């Protein structure tokens, strides 16, 4: 069964440094998402991406965050200047269509900011 893959599984970064989290969505999916989950808390929506542009973003997704689809298979989340509170699991998801469709998640990247 096709799946969403994310790399790295764990990223440790010094506060203030830039970090890029990578995802390969399911190949025939057109909609891509990033979510985060702070330890012990619920999964929170960050951003959705379709047709090479952001389609929706949450208040969490401020100007320190950016997303990109640099080629036909990868989807990345960049945090420009990391803060301690950015420490979380970051999940990439994809769906075939928009709305009323299951989103399929990767296993996440654990981001630890020191």
């Amino acid at each position: 069964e096709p799946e969403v893959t994310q790399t790295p599984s764990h990223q440790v970064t010094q506060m203030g440094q830039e970090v890029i989290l990578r995802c390969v969505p399911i190949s025939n999916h057109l909609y891509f998402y990033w979510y985060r989950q702070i330890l012990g808390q619920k999964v929170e929506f960050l951003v959705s991406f379709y047709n090479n542009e952001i389609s929706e973003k949450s208040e969490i997704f401020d100007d320190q965050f950016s997303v990109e689809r640099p080629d036909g298979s990868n989807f990345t989340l960049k945090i420009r200047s990391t803060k301690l509170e950015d420490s979380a699991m970051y999940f990439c998801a994809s769906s075939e269509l928009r709305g009323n469709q299951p989103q399929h998640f990767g296993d996440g990247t654990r981001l630890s900011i020191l």
Partner: protein
Amino acid sequence: GESVGLHLPTLSVQEGDNSIINCAYSNSASDYFIWYKQESGKGPQFIIDIRSNMDKRQGQRVTVLLNKTVKHLSLQIAATQPGDSAVYFCAESIGNDYKLSFGAGTTVTVRA
């Protein structure tokens, strides 16, 4: 605003028994609901979904019930197995919204 939550944070179930996991939502405009299972160290795994024009949907060993009158969603797992031990999340969305809004999760532990 949208709010999706679960009635109980933990559920302990004897192997072979049926499990019922509950979820309450507050936004009557929500029209799509989905259950995910999250095992330790893994991402949310899709279990089953339901649209608001239905009140019941069945999958393999799982049934989702939707009661729009009281804004309540439940997941029933038949003959619970040790592999069912995980955190279960309900999530919802509205119309053609892109985002899913997740509840807080219920930890299910299956006793042998």
